[in-house]
């Protein structure tokens, strides 16, 4: 066996109020891997899990690169890696289900379940057995998953099974769900550093067994490529942390950057001609101006309250009993936009009920709400120095088409035509900026 290859890497971690993101760059500044997890109340764990996920993705990238460099495999890599990732996720998911099984059994061991313990344990085992059985369907090619977070994915199915198996007179629904609530914390707070190493071999073999026309020689090369990725020595040089939880990150102060700077640099890296950045996240909105090197020259943030931020849309979605992603498309169906001035999150519910009570249509109200959010953002943009060309929109709200429509409209009215950039990976902007700072810091110190 040959000596494992080595690669120097830089990591950026963005601890957001809702999600924690990690980006790994290689020494040439190329993105090797990304990871995301929900921030929970425990930033340390969120940070570790996002980071590990990024490491796993990085190894997939390395495998893909190895395939591309191999004349026998070149051209197959992108589809193959996609399938391999699905297969890997299935193995990983099953591994997590076994963790869940252990944690559920531990929860069942609590003295208050003493009277019916044996039955309780059986029910919990049966639920996990069924989940293991149905797992492959979740990771079939083309299968759509509501979320990639284990909590959401496993939780939905667990609830259904719990409902089916609960006995209102015996072991009831609440008892079964209670076990999940305590077990899930253990499971999601357990990280598996060896996840790639322990699951990738089996994932690959499963894929090869099911066969999709690879020759024996190709299979041998594939195994070698994966082995190379598996053994790669990823040498972490510098990690830079950003986001609201940044003070909690376990590394020196010099390696902590404000997310405003990170968003500016990240947006510049994604779209090098960016001059103005608007970031609307869960609880704050930032208007940032950057120079041609991605250096922030001016910024403004919302003050004192989170009106008009992502959380506001979250409340509206809850009030309307809709998914967050459904709001934008519904608003786009509006024909008579309602004029709304308040973007106060606290008043959102009352405002909404009042207007529905007046007989206004949901889509028209939603269109008004989206515009109200953007009017607030426009004020911050004006305060920061206006909207220059090019203009990059980041943060969760950038995924909302009605918000984007309202923004485009208002920018055009106030500043004229501007090129608007939105990356599908915009959620990683801050983490990417952090990783780039890590690289600059290191290279600056070496120079």
């Amino acid at each position, binding site marked *: 066996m040959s000596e494992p290859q080595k690669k120097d890497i830089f990591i950026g971690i963005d601890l957001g109020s809702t999600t924690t993101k990690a980006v790994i760059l290689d020494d040439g500044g190329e993105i090797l891997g990304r990871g995301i997890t929900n921030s929970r109340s425990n930033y340390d764990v969120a940070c570790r899990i996002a980071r590990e996920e990024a490491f796993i993705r990085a190894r997939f990238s390395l495998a893909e690169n190895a395939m591309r460099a191999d004349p026998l495999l070149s051209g197959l890599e992108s589809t193959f890696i996609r399938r391999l990732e699905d297969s890997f996720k299935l193995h990983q998911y099953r591994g997590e289900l076994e963790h869940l099984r252990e944690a559920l059994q531990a929860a069942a061991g609590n003295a208050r379940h003493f009277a019916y313990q044996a039955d309780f344990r059986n029910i919990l085992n049966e639920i996990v057995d069924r989940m293991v059985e149905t797992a492959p369907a979740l990771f079939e090619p083309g299968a759509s998953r509501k979320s990639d977070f284990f909590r959401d994915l496993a939780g939905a199915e667990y609830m259904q099974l719990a409902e089916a198996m609960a006995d209102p007179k015996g072991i009831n629904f609440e008892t079964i769900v209670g076990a999940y609530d305590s077990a899930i914390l253990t499971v999601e707070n357990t990280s598996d550093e060896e996840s790639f190493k322990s699951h990738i071999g089996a994932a690959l073999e499963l894929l090869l067994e099911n066969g999709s026309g690879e020759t024996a020689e190709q299979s041998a090369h594939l195994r070698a490529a994966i082995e190379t990725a598996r053994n790669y020595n990823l040498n972490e040089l510098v990690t830079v942390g950003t986001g*609201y939880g940044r003070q909690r990150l376990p590394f020196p102060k*010099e390696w902590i*950057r*404000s*997310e*405003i*700077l990170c968003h500016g640099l990240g947006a510049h890296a994604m779209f090098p001609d960016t001059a103005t950045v608007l970031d609307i996240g869960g609880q*704050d909105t930032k208007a940032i101006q950057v120079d041609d*090197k*991605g*250096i*922030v*020259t*001016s*910024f*403004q*943030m919302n*003050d*004192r309250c989170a009106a008009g931020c992502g959380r506001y849309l979250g409340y509206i979605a809850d009030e309307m009993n809709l998914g967050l992603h459904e709001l934008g498309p519904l608003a786009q169906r509006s024909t008579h936009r309602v004029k709304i001035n308040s973007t106060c999150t606290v008043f959102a519910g009352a405002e909404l009920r009042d207007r529905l009570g007046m007989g206004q249509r949901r889509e028209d109200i939603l269109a008004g709400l989206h515009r109200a959010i953007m009017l607030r953002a426009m004020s911050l943009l004006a*305060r920061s*120095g206006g909207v220059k060309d090019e203009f990059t929109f980041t943060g969760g709200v950038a995924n909302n088409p009605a918000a984007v429509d309202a923004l485009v409209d208002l920018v055009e009215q106030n500043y004229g035509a501007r090129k608007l950039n939105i990356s599908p990976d915009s959620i990683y902007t801050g983490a990417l900026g952090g990783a780039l*700072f890590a690289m*600059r*810091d290191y*290279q*600056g110190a070496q120079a």
Partner: protein
Amino acid sequence: MTRPVDADKDRSMELQKEMIAGMFDDLATAHEDGKKVVYTFVPGNLTELIRSFDLLPVLPEINALQSGMRKLSGGYITEAEKQGHSEDVCTYVKCDLGMLKKGNVGPTGKRLPEPDLLLLSYTGCFTFMKWFELLKQEYDCPVAMLHVPYQPDGKIHDHQREYIVKQMRTELIPKLEQVSGKKYDEDRLKEMLAKSAKAEDDLVHVLESAKNRPSPIDAYFGGVYYIGPMFTAFRGSDQGLEYYRLLREEVDARVAAGLGPVTPDGTMTKEKFRLVVEGPPNWTSFREFWKMFYEEDAVVVASSYTKVGGLYDRGFRHDPARPLESLADYCLGCYTNLGLPSRVELLEEYVKEYEADGFMINSVKSCNSFSAGQLLILRQIEERTGIPGGFIESDLVDPRYFSAANIKNRIESYLQMLEQKRGAGVGA
């Protein structure tokens, strides 16, 4: 970076504490001691004139900010809101009214005397007028008002000065004579003004010491202490004179020793950022706010807030040769009485004279006199100096409007931005 605090207790600080405590003690027993009391405001205050009649000044904004620092303001504001004052009213006013409703116990725990006269000597803040209208409803006492014209072009014109002096002679001095039962004694006033001028020289020397590297003082967070006696009841007094003599000595010694400013956590040992700050500080989280700066090795070298009670560093002095005229100039020259162009010019000069790396605005919700036009100021300073400005928002004494995480985030981001610009893209 700071070093332990024990070695850094300044004698001037102790003296100031004694002076302030003594002032509240005197006020607590004023009426029993046969003394009369005048309520008046810091900007444009006529301390020497008041004192020349043996009257004692009470400064409601000082009470409010002291209550803020002693964590009492939140309760007072709630009390005033219960009385019907809106959330949008200046929190100094609400803090004062709430304190009054709760027994008028001052910040040091001693009762404040009721006013014998409400003296409004600066009208640039419209809220001051409303504030005294409210106090007038509470207290049955005379009111004296000096109308002070705004300075749109930043210059004091003769007719403005004459207008104020005339009001002093015909309106104010007769009321002071009536309340105190004493005749106006110009010689006594002159004597006091001479002491003021001397102390003012020392104060300017102290404020300008920030031109040194490292600066021996923080001209904002430390500055609010340094202006304390001058802006309150001690102008023209022997105590005031002594305080500034001592302070000047201490600051000179710090310069000679190459020491940085004293903070609650000790002496700053590193000066990474020199900043100019516009706007009043937040009082309810004063120490936490200050810490956000010194933890990042940022020192404020000049501030506009320390000029609300007079632009001494721009040459103004109380002048015994022109007693009422110089008092009139003083009322006209308060920082918030200046038009925006004059404020921009002053701040621009500070950035240049003090070789600042950055310029920051703390925009307070309560104070329109300060906050109106601040974004324009920010842009203009950026254009004129080429230095990016930072903008934070808080309040004077309403603890509900200090969001530590948000403010810290902005300060850190701003300082990192300055550093990034300095390093041309290579951090740390």
